[in-house]
C-alpha cells in the first residue's frame, strides 16, 4: 500500500503570526480512513483544508498520490477530491439530483449521464431517487441533506474524500445511522478518507487510524485499539474527558 495522502512538515501561520499548524507530518494509506481528532481550535479543520488548498500552507507540503498539491491545477485538484462539510453545504436553489451532479455539470458532461449518476449515488447513500431526486434542501431533513452532501462528494468518483465534521449537526440517532451507512459505503468503495471530528466514538467507529491534534501539533497517530490504551498523557486525557462526559450525562439521567 502506498500513501494516498501525506503531509510533510506542514505548517500554517496566521498573518498575525499565530501558528495554527506546526510542522505536521502524517500519511494515510490508500483505501483507509484517517480520523483527525481534537478539541475546537486544535487546527484540524485547517489541516483538512490545506489538502484542497482552501487554505494555503505557509510551509511544508501536502502530497495526494505522491503529487504535491501546489503543482496540480487548482480546479483539477478540487474536482478530484470529495468534500463534505457540516450542514449548509447544499445549494438552496438546486434539487438534490442537480446538486449531486454539479461537479459533472461543471465538467460539461451531458445531462442524461449526470442524472443517471446522481440517481445511482442517491441510491447508494440510501435515498430513493424516485422520492428525493427532485427535492430542494428545505424539503429534506438534516440527515437526508447530509446524505445528499455525501453523494455529491462522490459524484466524480474521487479517490480521496475530505469530511469536516460531517455529522456534527445531526441528532444522535440520525448520526449513528449515518455513521453506519458511511462505514458500509467506505468499505465498499475503498476510498481514502480524511475525516475531522471531536467525537471519540465516531473516530473509533470509522477510523483505521486516529490522529490527535493539540494546538496544531500531532500528539498521537494510532490505531483505534492502541489509541484507547495509550498511556500518552494527551491521549488518555482526551479519552477520559470524553468518557467523563458520557458518565455525567448518565448520572444526570438517574
Amino acid at each position: 500500500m502506498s500513501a494516498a495522502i501525506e503531509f510533510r512538515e506542514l505548517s500554517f501561520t496566521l498573518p498575525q503570526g499565530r501558528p495554527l499548524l506546526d510542522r505536521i507530518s502524517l500519511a494515510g494509506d490508500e483505501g483507509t480512513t484517517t480520523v483527525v481528532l481534537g478539541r475546537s481550535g486544535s487546527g484540524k479543520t485547517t489541516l483538512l483544508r490545506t489538502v484542497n488548498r482552501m487554505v494555503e500552507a505557509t510551509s511544508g507540503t501536502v502530497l495526494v498520490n505522491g503529487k504535491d498539491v501546489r503543482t496540480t491545477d487548482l480546479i483539477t485538484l478540487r474536482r478530484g477530491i470529495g468534500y463534505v462539510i457540516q450542514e449548509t453545504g447544499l445549494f438552496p436553489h438546486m434539487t438534490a439530483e442537480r446538486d449531486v451532479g454539479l461537479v459533472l455539470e461543471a465538467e460539461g458532461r451531458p445531462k442524461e449521464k449526470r442524472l443517471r449518476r446522481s440517481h445511482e449515488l442517491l441510491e447508494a447513500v440510501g435515498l430513493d431517487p424516485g422520492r428525493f431526486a427532485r427535492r430542494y434542501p428545505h424539503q429534506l431533513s438534516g440527515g437526508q441533506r447530509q446524505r445528499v452532501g455525501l453523494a455529491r462528494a462522490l459524484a466524480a468518483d474521487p479517490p480521496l474524500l475530505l469530511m469536516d465534521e460531517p455529522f456534527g449537526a445531526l441528532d444522535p440517532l440520525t448520526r449513528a445511522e449515518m455513521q453506519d451507512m458511511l462505514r458500509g459505503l467506505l468499505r465498499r468503495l475503498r476510498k481514502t478518507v480524511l475525516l475531522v471530528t471531536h467525537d471519540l466514538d465516531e473516530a473509533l467507529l470509522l477510523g483505521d487510524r486516529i490522529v490527535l491534534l493539540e494546538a496544531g501539533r500531532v500528539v498521537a497517530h494510532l490505531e483505534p485499539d492502541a489509541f484507547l490504551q495509550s498511556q500518552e498523557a494527551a491521549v488518555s486525557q482526551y479519552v477520559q474527558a470524553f468518557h467523563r462526559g458520557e458518565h455525567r450525562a448518565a448520572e444526570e439521567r438517574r
Partner: protein
Amino acid sequence: MSGFLSQYGGEIGILTLEHLWLTGAAMLWATAIAVPAGVWLTRRPRWAKPVIGIANVLQTIPSLAMFGFLLPLPWLGERAARVAIVALTAYALLPILRNTYAGIQGIDRSLIEVARALGLTGMQRFFKVELPLAASFILAGLRTATVTCVGIATIAAAVGAGGLGELIFRGVASIDNRLILAGAIPAALLALAVDGALGLLERWFRVPTIQAAP
C-alpha cells in the same frame, strides 16, 4: 365621458406606448450598467461606498432640474427622448446597483466556499451559484427602479419627450381636470401593472431557506 374617450382615446394609447418606450429603454440601459457594476463592486468592496454614494447623489437631483441640466448638452439635447432616457437611467441606477451588490454580498459565505471546494471556476460560481441566489434581490431592485421611473417619466413631457406627462401638463395649462386624469390614471395603472408583474417574477426566483423546513 364617452365623447372625451373617443376624442382622446387614440392619443392616450400612443402616449402610453411612448411612456413605456422611454421607461423600458431607460431600464435596459440601467440594468446593463448597474448589474455588472454591482457585481464588480462585490469583487472590490472598497469601491462600494463611493460608487453607491455617487448613485445616491444622482437620485437626489430633482427630476425637473435633471431634465433641465441635460437639455443643453450636445448630441443629447438634440432629441428630447434622449434626454429623458438618460435622466431616467440615472434614477434607475441606485436601486439596481444597491440590490445587486447587497444580494451577492448577502449570500451565505459557506455556499461560496463549497462552490470553490467543488472546483467550480469563477464564471461557473457566478452563473450557477451567485446569480441565481441573488436573482430575486436584483429583481426587487429592478422593480423599485421601474416603478419610480414610470412616475418620473411623466415629467419628461416638460422637455418635450412625450409620454403620458404630456396630457398632464396640457391639463394643468388649460385647467382641465379630465386631461390631467387622462394622463395620471394610465400612468398609475402602468406603475401598478409593472409592479405586479415584476413582483411575480421576483417571487418566482426567490430561493427558499433551509430554516423554513417543515
